[in-house]
């Protein structure tokens, strides 16, 4: 039982980190990144390459370069790769295109990524994927399986807390207000002189780094990574978590990640199989779809909605203050 609980706990931590990154893009800034899982994959592959060591000729798997760095360098490097990739893909897809085109082009890029990695075997072992990715300190620490898992869980919780603190600060800072202003009314934000393209690239970079970190944490735990781990519907699973939990609210998003990714998607795998395993998988996805629809209909703001932020004392109604003329800017529900 402990065995499953530790696995599930780690999956949930990974999902929470990934959903927080997505929330920065989708929840705060309104950027619809349909290629999000690509960044998780980039982080997972980076960490794999940086821990597997040099590929041995005629070995089990092929990949380019490869080295063996001590923890936490692979995780940090993954975040850097994710960030750079985010800015790069953002520069291609978000600069000149209209909103609907952006979403579609990002979806196409996500699929391009899986095609490319599957087709070029010498890059990252193709469709078979990489395996035997070492976990940090496993040889040094003499802990049992459960003991080591708890240790690893501790490492990932620390990483999650760092991410949380960064995001909380962004949310409260003037930058957070700017992102929400862009989400609510992009034309107005740019009319008052803010560079919305730079803002979008920024959230693509930061969000991409967080996604990559989530991938890095996950890959050192499960020890394997292949194109089938990051097909584009996975992105929609993360979107579902953000919507169900409450976009724009870090606690809500964490709850959504717990509910959707933890209990709903991973938890049901651990249940005894009632019918054939295919049916379980399919009914899981069907209920995920239904869950999204039900939430969008009955509670589009999520379980824990975004808090309405009010700054300073509210003036008495009727008094002449700027807010009553131009209307509320902050926390307007979508």
């Amino acid at each position, binding site marked *: 039982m402990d065995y499953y609980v530790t696995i599930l706990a780690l999956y949930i931590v990974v999902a929470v980190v990934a959903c927080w990154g997505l929330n920065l893009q989708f929840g705060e800034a*309104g950027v*619809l990144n349909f290629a999000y899982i690509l960044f998780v994959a980039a982080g997972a592959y980076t960490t794999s390459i940086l821990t597997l060591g040099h590929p041995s000729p005629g070995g089990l798997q092929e990949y380019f370069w490869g080295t063996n760095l001590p923890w936490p360098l692979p995780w940090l490097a993954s975040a850097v790769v994710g960030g750079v990739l985010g800015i790069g893909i953002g520069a*291609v*897809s978000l600069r*000149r*295109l*209209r*909103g*609907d*085109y952006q*979403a*579609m*082009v990002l*979806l*196409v*890029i996500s*699929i*391009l990524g899986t*095609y*490319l990695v*599957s*087709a070029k075997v010498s890059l990252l072992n193709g469709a078979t994927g990489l395996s035997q990715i070492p976990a940090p300190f496993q040889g040094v620490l003499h802990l049992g399986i459960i003991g080591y898992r708890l240790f690893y869980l501790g490492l990932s919780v620390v990483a999650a807390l760092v991410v949380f603190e960064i995001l909380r600060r962004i949310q409260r800072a003037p930058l957070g207000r700017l992102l929400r202003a862009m989400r609510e009314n992009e034309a107005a934000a740019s009319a008052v002189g803010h560079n919305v393209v730079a803002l979008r690239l920024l959230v693509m970079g930061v969000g991409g780094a967080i996604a990559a970190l989530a991938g890095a944490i996950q890959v050192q735990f499960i020890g394997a990574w292949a194109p089938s781990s990051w097909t584009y*519907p996975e992105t*929609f699973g993360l*979107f*579902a978590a953000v*919507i169900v939990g409450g976009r724009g609210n870090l606690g809500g998003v964490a709850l959504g990640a717990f509910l959707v990714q933890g209990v709903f998607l991973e938890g049901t795998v651990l249940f005894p199989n009632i019918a054939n395993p*295919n*049916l379980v*998988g*399919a*009914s899981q*996805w*069907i209920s*995920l*779809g*239904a*869950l*999204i*629809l039900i939430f*969008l*209909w009955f509670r*589009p703001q999520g379980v824990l909605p975004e808090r309405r932020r009010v700054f300073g004392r509210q003036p008495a109604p009727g008094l002449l203050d700027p807010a009553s003329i131009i209307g509320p800017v902050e926390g307007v529900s*979508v």
Partner: protein
Amino acid sequence: MSQVISSLGFGIVTASILLPAAVGFTLQFSTTNVLNIAFGAQMTFAAFIAYLCTQHGVPLWPAMVIAGVFGALSSGLLNRLLLAPFQRRGTSFFGMIVVTIALALVIEYVVEIIWGPSSVSYPLQGGKAVHIGSMIFSQEQLIVIGVGVVIALCTHALLRYTRIGKAMRAVAANPALAKSSGIRAQRVTDFAWAASGLMAGMAGVMLGISVSSVSYTMGDTFLIEIIAAAVLGGVGQVYGAMVGALVIGVLLEESAIVLSGAYAPIAAFAVLILVLMVRPTGLFAGTAKVKGIA
């Protein structure tokens, strides 16, 4: 050289399947402003309905028509029961995308539960192969091409010469103005969804015939090519989608000669992204506006 021409044959077949799909996708988008990610799943469902018909002794081509009608009806119903209520509530453009994604998940896995995860295939006659130059077509492929051409012509006639087609163009160009000049928006929307479902159904069966297998992920995979064709032509541009279908279809097959097969889709999508870098609105946005097709 002969390889280039024989691949062109495959490209034309792929393009004739992409054509109804991309036209249906973009026609519905331009009139209703809903980006329908469930389009691929609708194709799959209709393809399986045709399979069900052939299992019960219905010949393939009537089964294709039945699948088209099923697609039209189910698509119209989906709009009335699910998508239109969401839109009336003021769900944002991106919210609607998420709704159709959820819908796609539901449809796709309902299909998996009903028909199982392994692929099935239609009973094909095979028949005599037809040689045109160094292009070789099976008889089924020729009919698929024919159906594609007929659908293109019908769409053109619909948009040019019928009242409902003109109304659709009006709604696409300016919904508010169209409404205030007395066009019944509800009817136009219903018609657009039904037409797009019809084309999804036909395209699903055509795809099943062409790749000689039908599986629950079929439409999902093909959706990317549909999106590529539609975006290349300019989203919402029906004639653009036709050109986009031709370009993407031929590119997909031709690039398999130069690159190895696994890289072919990469080339086609890379071209799409490059074109958008140069012309962010797709190939046809400008000319379409001038001609009043938009």
